[in-house]
């Protein structure tokens, strides 16, 4: 994983840790740097990880500015569409969530300035983590599939693995709607990628122009997202998507949830592990 967007203060500490065990780095202005390290909360010091906040590197404005400048190559204007939505993404799919002062003009956000917090999420490839889901649901014929869990449990990792399996094992055309650049370098002979585009637009033009058999996308959240998914299903295209919810009731109580769109609902295990299946329900919400 390439961490060259970090200033020396941070990368020196990271270089002394096992970077493949880092899932998340949280930087908050004037606060210690916190890592999710192998699912444990630790701090980052100049000598690697530490359990003590007093030994930690303290995040300064200079550190945050350097990270933003390195990520944007000193060109906020070129990345402002993503910054407005609260994130930046590296080529390798590392997603950097941003919090700061939002600047409005009338009713729309122009940009985010004076950034005070960064949440850096490091993607991990878990090859074959979707095997159980794949075998039980879509191995024989494509179906509409919804992967459900709390944030940070491995939904995107599962989606990437499903895309990889479909690409390797079938001749279906796969359209990846990669709204935040998190599917990173995923490519294949059957994969088309629409990047940094909102779901509604990606659905309407992607389905018309790319004629996919299946659309894979992350995080259905807004009414527009759900309606787009329904529209795609009605057009005869299969959908594999993810959604934030802990339990079935949370999902059913979602404001924009539409029944009868998905054939299977896959709930992931929320025990600190990544990409493990808790239960798979059919469209009548019965365990299979």
């Amino acid at each position: 994983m390439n961490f060259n967007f970090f200033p020396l203060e941070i990368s020196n500490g990271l270089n002394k840790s096992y970077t493949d065990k880092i899932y998340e780095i949280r930087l908050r202005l004037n606060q210690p740097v916190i890592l999710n390290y192998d699912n444990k909360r630790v701090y980052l010091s100049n000598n690697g990880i530490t359990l003590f906040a007093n030994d930690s590197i303290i995040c300064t404005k200079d550190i945050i500015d350097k990270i933003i400048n390195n990520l944007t190559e000193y060109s906020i204007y070129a990345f402002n569409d993503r910054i407005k939505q609260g994130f930046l993404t590296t080529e390798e799919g590392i997603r950097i969530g941003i919090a700061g002062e939002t600047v409005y003009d009338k009713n729309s956000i122009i940009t985010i300035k004076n950034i005070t917090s960064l949440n850096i999420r490091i993607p991990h490839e878990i090859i074959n983590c979707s095997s159980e889901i794949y075998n039980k649901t879509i191995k024989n014929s494509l179906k509409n599939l919804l992967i459900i869990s709390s944030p940070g449990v491995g939904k995107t990792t599962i989606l990437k693995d499903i895309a990889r399996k479909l690409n390797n094992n079938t001749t279906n055309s796969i359209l990846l709607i990669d709204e935040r650049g998190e599917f990173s370098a995923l490519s294949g002979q059957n994969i088309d990628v629409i990047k940094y585009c909102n779901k509604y637009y990606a659905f309407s033009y992607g389905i018309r122009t790319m004629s996919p058999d299946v659309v894979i996308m992350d995080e259905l959240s807004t009414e527009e997202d759900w309606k787009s998914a329904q529209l795609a299903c009605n057009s005869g295209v299969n959908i594999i998507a993810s959604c934030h919810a802990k339990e079935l009731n949370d999902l059913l109580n979602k404001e924009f949830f539409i029944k009868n769109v998905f054939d299977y609902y896959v709930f992931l295990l929320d025990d600190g592990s990544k990409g493990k299946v808790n239960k798979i329900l059919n469209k009548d919400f019965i365990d299979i």
Partner: protein
Amino acid sequence: MNYVIGILLLVISIYIGYSIAKKYDKKLNFYYQFNNFNNILKNEMLFSQKTIKKIILENYLENDYFYKKLMNYFNDNLVNVDCKFLDKEEILFYDTYLSTIGQGDLTAQIGYIEKTANYLAEKYNQSLSEQKKYKSLYTKIGFLIGLMLLIIFL
């Protein structure tokens, strides 16, 4: 012997006059490149959305003071480029320009670049008239002083 020293002093005087006059060439060229880059930046921001680093790399001129400092700033201030031909206020303006470009949304950036363009056009015209006025003056003064020294030594 006096003849040789006299000739030497003439050459040195002309060189000193020429060197002082060169400052005006450098300043004129600096503002020419600055103006040029500012226009390129505006067009690239509007139409290609390329990053500043890419724009600099595509337009970089080796051994040019303007681009040297620009390159250094966007590569973490590696070397300090000494622009002696600029006064304090001009250096401050340039430093502010470096720390402002790229740091905002497109509308704000274009507004800043357009304001800068007016300032740069003024500065370029001022540098051009200074160069016309002083370049030949300092070269001539150098030559005349050298000639006087030559006559004295002869």
